[in-house]
């Protein structure tokens, strides 16, 4: 009986190994089932979903105007101190002082892409961009100023 059991065991072992090998050979002959992407080569056709959180940007329209009022809601919402809002006082044509942003400094190196600043913004001034290749040669390039030079706030945004 021992010999029969032993042969059965060997047969079972060989069968189980062959089953696994058959699965491997299946993919060896069925190239269409393979889903591997060749990343740096497919850069041109790579489409990221529109919600992908790559970095914080501030959209500007064609007149170089943004929607940021300088309320610092994003700065308060950020857990890491990634955003720093530097405000100034603009003098309007009527001679009134009005608070506006001077610089919105964004530290990409500190950002964890948690989306809390976007949620906190009451005037939809900032959004997430779909860029993800953030490597640069100098770490100073990671500190960005989000508002374009010479930009001002859009008409009607309070």
């Amino acid at each position: 009986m021992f010999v029969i059991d032993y042969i059965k065991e060997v047969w079972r072992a060989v069968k189980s190994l062959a089953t696994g090998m058959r699965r491997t050979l299946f993919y060896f002959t069925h190239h269409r089932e393979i889903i591997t992407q060749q990343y740096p080569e497919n850069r041109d056709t790579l489409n990221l979903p529109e919600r992908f959180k790559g970095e914080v940007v501030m959209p500007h329209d064609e007149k170089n105007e943004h929607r940021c009022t300088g309320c610092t809601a994003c700065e308060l919402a950020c857990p890491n101190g990634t955003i720093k809002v530097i405000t100034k006082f603009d003098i309007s044509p009527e001679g009134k002082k009005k608070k506006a942003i001077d610089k919105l400094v964004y530290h990409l190196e500190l950002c964890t892409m948690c989306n809390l600043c976007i949620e906190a913004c009451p005037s939809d001034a900032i959004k997430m961009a779909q860029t993800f290749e953030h490597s640069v040669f100098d770490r100073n390039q990671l500190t960005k100023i989000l508002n374009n030079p010479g930009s001002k706030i859009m008409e009607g945004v309070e």
Partner: protein
Amino acid sequence: MVEEIGTTSEGDLIINVGPQHPATHGVLHLVITLNGETIKKVEPHLGYIHRSIEKMCESLTYRQFIYVTSRMDYLSAHINNHGCALCVEKGLQVEIPARAQVIRVLMDELTRIASHELWWGAMAMDLGAFTPFFHAFRERETINDIMEETCGARLTMNYMVPGGVMQDLHPMFQKRVKDFLVLYKRKIHEYDELLTGNIIFQNRMKGVGMLDPADAISYGCTGPTARGSGVRCDVRKFAPYEVYDKLDFEEVTEQGCDSFARYMVRIREMQQSVRIIEQLIDNIPSGDFQAKTKAVLKLPKGEFYQQVETARGELGIYIVSEGGTTPYRIKFRSPGFSNLSVLDHIARGSKLGDLVAMMGTLDLVIPDIDR
């Protein structure tokens, strides 16, 4: 202090596994006392990836601290965030919209499948089987794409916020999940063909790392580690949160008590998660995805505890509030820590080669243990 390389006075050899070792999946450092090839003692040394998350959370507001918990058990980030959100909601006493509840459960179960997929591939690779890793990552990639589309990130989503979820589901979400379920059912037999039935794999798993039910309870093991010893401990069953009490799924337990039983629990648990997703995917109620909450959250003075079932076991979140905007103290009861503590117990007396199989089936995620 034990001399870390060398021999003890009894002539036993002391070796280090880790902190940089491919089989520990992270920076876990094990100091192993060996008598020949037999393990006499395993001492896990922690602290290599300690980021003091609990202390960090004390300086963050109730909205902000949730994103940090994605970095604890990064493979079930959704479930960690879910537990924190639930705990804050318990303090705020807000009613969560039905839609948000279903979305949360769907995300949790997708995360559970993704986590078990990664575990399956990584554990097989520990044991020398390289092919399963790619098969597991193919299915996991589909889930990651779904997450990327709806939550905006692949691993650290930060999607659950106090009051609901951050954004509504993507219009394509239902179709993508259904496609995934079709793919998953078409491919699930490959798992058994490649690994479960494999004779080498079975011989290395069966009878290795025996964990008695009594020991599993006394060491505080939860999740598939304890359920592999027949201990019923699923938080989704005995303390249901969200819509789990209305769902039809079974708590997977195995009686084998060995590594193979723990392996089978996880394989069967993936199928239960598929069952839960199938029940919910066509029945997502319409309505709000987020309850109205104040801009600044303040929890009343008191203590709040919430437990959730992550892919590795029971995660407890304990918040002590003094009535301010930040927690006074936060304690996370992580499943990995208790599951690691049992390693010394189950490894004693077995061979060094089996240690990797035991560690694999405990499903250790080191950032979760160290926090």
